[in-house]
């Protein structure tokens, strides 16, 4: 088992739900080891695009290639050994312990009747520890708080030992400390990461490159400092804002200016 990083190439993907177009002709790349962020307002198509990558929403046209292989032609299980995801999908009401939930991540590496090995146990425990959740191991999953659940789901994805990790708003429900922690983990992974994020400042700090989606189209892409501009904030989000390099981190920092409080003459 090796932990490596994959190359993701999304080429001209169009997605729809029934008659409704979700995203239109989107192309995107993530090179091995990169952390690529998807940002954009709600309903801009971030989740849909991610779902096409983790093989839940089939593109009408276009291709999703992981290391050159068409993700939609590979067997589901084969893809799951390379691509893991943290998705927005509620869990049902069943009594699984946290360690059992994380152990699920080992499934694509198992044949039908394989038992859990000591190696699996070790991986599960190290993944739990890496999201600061080792003490939750024996707790029932459905009694955890939203933030605890989210960290456990990240641990489960890590347990798959993916070389491409896809995450849909992984910082939802997390308090600030754990937001930073989870993104820090993603940053440190050898795997390629594609992550949809709400918070532009977190995206700017943790991602190598950003794609900005708006109404199903890519509006801008590139390094955060090039992409995040007051013009873009106005165009995509419909808000006024200032972007300045942070004095210590150097990452672009976005401050929104609610319209009624914009000082006269500054717009």
């Amino acid at each position: 088992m090796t932990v490596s990083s994959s190359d993701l190439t999304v080429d001209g993907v169009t997605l729809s739900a029934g008659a409704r177009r979700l995203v239109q002709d989107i192309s995107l790349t993530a090179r091995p080891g990169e952390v690529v962020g998807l940002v954009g307002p709600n309903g801009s198509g971030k989740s849909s695009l991610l779902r096409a990558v983790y093989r839940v929403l089939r593109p009408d046209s276009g291709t999703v290639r992981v290391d050159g292989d068409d993700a939609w032609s590979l067997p589901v299980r084969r893809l799951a050994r390379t691509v893991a995801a943290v998705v927005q999908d509620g869990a049902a009401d069943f009594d699984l312990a946290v360690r059992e939930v994380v152990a699920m991540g080992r499934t694509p590496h198992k044949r039908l009747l394989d038992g859990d090995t000591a190696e699996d146990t070790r991986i599960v425990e190290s993944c739990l520890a890496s999201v600061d959740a080792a003490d939750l191991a024996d707790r029932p999953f459905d009694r955890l708080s939203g933030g605890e659940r989210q960290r456990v789901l990240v641990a489960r994805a890590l347990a798959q030992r993916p070389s491409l990790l896809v995450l849909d708003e992984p910082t939802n429900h997390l308090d600030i400390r754990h937001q930073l922690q989870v993104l820090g983990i993603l940053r440190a992974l050898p795997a390629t990461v594609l992550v949809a994020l709400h918070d532009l400042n977190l995206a700017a700090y943790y991602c190598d490159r950003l794609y900005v989606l708006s109404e199903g189209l890519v509006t801008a892409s590139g390094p955060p400092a090039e992409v995040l501009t007051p013009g873009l904030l106005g165009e995509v989000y419909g808000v006024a804002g200032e972007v300045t390099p942070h004095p210590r981190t150097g990452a672009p920092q976005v401050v929104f200016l609610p319209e009624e409080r914009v000082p006269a003459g500054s717009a």
Partner: protein
Amino acid sequence: MTATAASPATTRQDSKVSDEQPRSGRSFALTLSVLAVLLVVSATAAVAIGSVRVPPGQVWGIVTHAVGLDWADPVWSRARETIVLDVRAPRVLLGAVTGAGLAVVGTAMQALVRNPLAEPYLLGVSSGASLGAVVVIVFGVTLFGAVSLPLSAFLGALATLLLVYATARAGGRVTSVRLVLSGVAIAAVLTALMNVLLLISERGNEARAVLAWTLGGLGGVNWGTLWLPAVALALGIGVLLVQARSLNLLLAGEEAATTMGLDVARFRARMFVLLSLVTGVLVAAAGPIGFVGLILPHLVRLFVGGDHRRVLPTAALAGAVFLIWADVAARTVAAPMEIPVGVLTALCGGPFFLWLMRRDARRKTEEGVA
């Protein structure tokens, strides 16, 4: 995170050590052993109890004698031997097989539709199977010989399961409310159809017999009709155990299951066929017996957790024990009259269902997603 790769050799070596899962492993083995003992004791007692009481020792004497072991002197009467071997033993075995089968089907169904209230009877699947069986009886179909009845029950079960699932599913989700309501509504229609068939049928006596059967009962079974339910159960448990990991993945949600390597649509379709097959065969043999598939899986999860590798075998044993005793009660509480066992399981199951529903509502309120 330090992601060090271990050599395959260590992995294989260590696999023995970890088979003794620290926490749940031991209690699982204990639970299984206790239930296995309980099953043997229950089966013995159930054969012994009845209008003619047979001492438990003699039960085993008769049984071992019948299979050619001379462990006990044959001091019993011929009539007693008939009661044990030809009347009670097959009935108790059918009870065990049916109870195990329904519990296992209920367990899997709850994972497949991702809803804790799923169960063959509540979802109308048993009614579909009954209608299928009644069609064969009323119209005297004998196209496929002895398996016409179970075959038709299987097809009725499968059609109903697909219909209920399709009706309850909207936007990729199956809510409890829609699931149970569509199950109830479809079951009502199917039961009405079945009653019409029975009323217009010219075979008056048969209709009465069928009516009794639709309440669920284990009477009238013999060795010749026992093998099919037993084979269906063995097949069902075997396949489900092999697929236990995949059932576990479904607990995480359909999308998440896909990302962990499960082809959800294909898997669910195959499992629906399997569950309908088991349900159809069991209903053809014992009538629609409700709530076993609801009560047992949930009780068992309290003891062994939610992992299907543990829930399935435990639920099978517990379901067998449960239905054996339910049938003993059915035979004895109003003796010499016999209460249909399905009536008794509904008496226990209805309140259990309500409790489960309230518990889920409470949990959802606590989470603020009511």
